[in-house]
């Protein structure tokens, strides 16, 4: 007996029985009246759903694995699709003449159909059933790709129907059609600040992790520090960053530049004395000295990187969202995608050190160059926009705020997100590099590999999967935290969520939430894919 299937059927059935499937709202704001599957008027086809919900419960008791698996997959898919389709049809009928269903004095203006709990439970039940079916098929030894197809058939069809406008009656889509353009802009924004901060975080985190794994004296310090950062609530971190950044924003660029110079000098001096004294100092003092060097060097570095990155973000944001530079930004996109496709595709399809492989490598390099060039072009164009340095007339009056750094806005978001991305990256890099078998490194040395060769040919490839796992965690987390960044005016998908709360409009909330979820899932999948392609099969076997 397959109890998972039974569970799935149970969820769906109970959902249909006790929870309203759709909710008829007299207008966008007012909360409407819910309709259980039973209350839906019209012909008996809604009972088909009940039947379908009960099917897995029955199938669960069959014994033959394979046939059970197939039946479950089929019924699950059917349940999935019908749970979406039938209520939509019911909704259409309700909307034709809503008055009788709404209470007295209901203010009816462009009423809507809000998909409700029952529908969600139905889908959940369908998912569980599909899961159970897939598991049976797996145990019956059906190839993985066949299972993949069966599992994804229903969602694919649903997607087609969605595009075909089958579900347009659902309020979330009504909302989408109303705000599509705005959504697109916010989405790009979100994508941008997640990517940029992930990229910066990657560089910083990996190098920190590297340092930690190289010097066991600093490793506790570094790991503890990033750990602390992680515990700080996102909202709080935004708040804490607000004040210093606001102050920084007021500074003149030239002042800051001067300070930067001084800080660099100081760092150089401290570092210099470190190397000058290196042998004469006692070990512990030397360690403290080393840390001091790192910190003093970090100050100007962070300052500079912070300003630079937020300026780049501003350029990118103008370039990608303003539409005036559509062609150029599209070029960047196309080049980028092509680079990935050619490079990964080459690695994946072509045998190593064959001619084709070589060509694909060169091609991807060329494309990469193309990406960079077109990006530069885009930025040059964007920097012409009044939104970059609009007010500035002379270098003297140029403030840091003009460069995009201020307490409110995207700068704190970028910094906070970067900080949050550190823990998984540092931790995984550290773990990954530390877990490389010493014997392997030793034989590497024994064969006369230089430290660089050892790092790039042995340690990095072996630690790669672990590091990538870190990148994935960080990425998914950032997409989530990114939605909070709206409260400090960083924009992104969070805007819809917050406004949705303010207007008590659940559609608007979902309009922000669903793309965010989708983005997180896609990002995760994409990174998994890259990880899979770039990991040597020699170490993949043991992973799973």
């Amino acid at each position: 007996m397959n109890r998972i299937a039974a569970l799935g059927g149970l969820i769906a059935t109970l959902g249909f029985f006790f929870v309203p499937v759709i909710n008829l709202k007299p207008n966008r704001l007012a909360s409407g009246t819910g309709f259980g599957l039973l209350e839906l008027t019209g012909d008996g086809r809604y009972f088909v759903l009940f039947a379908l919900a009960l099917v897995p419960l029955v199938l669960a008791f069959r014994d033959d694995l394979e046939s059970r698996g197939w039946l479950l997959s089929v019924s699950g898919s059917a349940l999935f699709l019908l749970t979406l389709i039938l209520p939509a049809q019911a909704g259409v009928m309700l909307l034709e003449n809503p008055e009788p269903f709404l209470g007295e004095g209901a203010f009816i203006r462009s009423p809507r159909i809000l998909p409700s709990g029952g529908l969600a439970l139905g889908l959940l039940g369908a998912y569980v059933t599909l899961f159970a079916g897939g598991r049976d098929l797996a145990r019956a030894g059906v190839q993985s790709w066949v299972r993949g197809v069966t599992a994804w058939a229903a969602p694919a069809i649903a997607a087609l129907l969605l595009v075909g406008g089958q579900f347009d009656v659902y309020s979330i889509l009504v909302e989408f059609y109303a705000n599509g353009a705005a959504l697109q802009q916010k989405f790009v924004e979100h994508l941008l600040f997640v990517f940029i901060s992930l990229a910066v975080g990657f560089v910083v985190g990996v190098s920190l992790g590297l340092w930690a794994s190289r010097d066991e004296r600093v490793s506790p310090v570094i790991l503890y520090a990033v750990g602390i950062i992680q515990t700080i609530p996102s909202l709080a971190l935004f708040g804490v960053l607000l004040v210093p950044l606001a102050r920084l924003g007021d500074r003149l660029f030239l002042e800051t530049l001067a300070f930067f110079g001084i800080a660099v000098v100081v760092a150089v001096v401290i570092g210099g004395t470190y190397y000058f004294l290196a042998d004469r100092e006692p070990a512990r003092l030397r360690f403290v000295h080393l840390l001091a060097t790192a910190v003093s060097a970090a100050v100007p570095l962070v300052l500079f990187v912070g300003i630079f990155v937020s300026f780049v973000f501003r350029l990118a944001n103008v370039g990608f969202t303003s539409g005036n530079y559509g062609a150029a930004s599209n070029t960047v996109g196309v080049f980028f995608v092509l680079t990935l496709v050619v490079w990964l595709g080459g690695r994946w399809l072509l045998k190593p050190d064959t001619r084709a492989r070589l060509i694909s490598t060169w091609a991807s390099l060329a494309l990469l160059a193309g990406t960079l060039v077109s990006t530069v072009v885009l930025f040059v164009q964007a920097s012409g926009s009044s939104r970059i340095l609009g007010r500035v007339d002379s270098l003297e009056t140029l403030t840091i705020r003009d460069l995009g750094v201020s307490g409110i806005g995207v700068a704190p978001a970028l910094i906070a997100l970067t900080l949050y991305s550190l823990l998984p990256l540092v931790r995984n890099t550290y773990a990954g590099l530390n877990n490389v078998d010493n014997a392997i490194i030793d034989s590497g040395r024994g064969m006369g590999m230089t430290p660089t060769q050892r790092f790039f040919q042995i340690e990095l490839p072996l630690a790669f999967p672990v590091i990538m796992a870190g990148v994935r965690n960080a990425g998914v987390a950032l997409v989530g935290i990114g939605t909070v960044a709206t409260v400090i005016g960083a924009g992104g998908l969070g805007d819809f969520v917050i406004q949705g709360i303010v207007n008590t409009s659940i559609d608007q909330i979902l309009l922000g939430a669903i793309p965010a979820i989708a983005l997180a899932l896609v990002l995760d999948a994409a990174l998994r894919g890259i990880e899979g392609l770039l990991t040597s099969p020699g170490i993949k076997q043991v992973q799973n």
Partner: protein
Amino acid sequence: MNWARVPGVASLLWAGLAVALLSLSTLQVNVTDDELREAVGDTASFTPDIWLPLLSFSGSTVMDIQSSNDLRVLTFGLLEANSNASDALADPTGAASLFWFAAFMAVLEGLLAFGFRNREEKLVRPLVRAAGIFVVIWSFYGHEPFWDWMLRGLFPTSPDLLYNTNTLVSLAGQHMELVVVSSILTITIGLTLGISVTRSAFREFLPLLSDVVNSGQTVPTLAIIAIMAPIIGFGFWPAIVALILYGLLPIVRNTIVGLESVDPSMIDAAKGMGFTPSQVLWQIEIPNAASIILAGVRTSVVINVGTAALGAYVGSGGLGNPIASGLNQSINPWVLLGALAAALLAILLDYVLGRVEYVMTPRGLQIER
């Protein structure tokens, strides 16, 4: 390198804190916040006394009838306590002052460091230290003149410093209430799920569960809270539900991982010796998985502190309130006040739980830090 292990250092630190508090008490500061001035007069000294109700009443839940004056009353009561604290120092029999507390801790740590060096310290010292630090920091939440003074230093020109609708300590109280309630529920649910799917009877549900829980992680926190709000209604409960949903992952995952990582041969041996399944679970598996499970609990609670801050947007109160309204009305002092308090609370809880985790891990499995 690890100073925490050097005997006596802790007690020295405590002594230092005591001295600091003593000198603090001599400092007279101008009170700028209006309500505060009403309460304590133009100048106040903060002789922080111990202020320890863990949870205040949840001051602001939807549709719960409550006067705005209550808050004031609470505030006054609190502030009176502060203002009297200076007398308390003059006459040691008065309200327990943090100064005496720190001094006491210094002595206690000293005793533990030298007296108990080898006995029981793994159990006693971490807890004592954690408790002590918690009391000190928590007490500072109650001392508005302190925050007033600090914010005044940072924002000399700003007319409003302290959050005007609620006291910091009651906000922190609401916050703790959210965290505690949700954490208790989360832990119960998470452990039950985690344990049951690792029993042979329900093992087939394990992949399903981990699949669901993992994908749950991709839903943005803010989104969960926001979606819950219109469904459940604004206030305390949507936040709680969101907190539970979001805090579940680390606990379930770590419970599963922890239990799975217990050496099967050990379980086998136990069965061989005639343990009943429940004995195997409670005497073999749980103790050996304890450290991992507790790590999960710790993570989950800390996440909850962060998520609870977002509760402000659905009217569940907490330290997110000053941040949110500060951002709305662009009053930076409020933002900073809430942010610092929230961050402090998170770090504090993380530390305390860390010690608890360390203590509750069976001696044999403890890794020296």
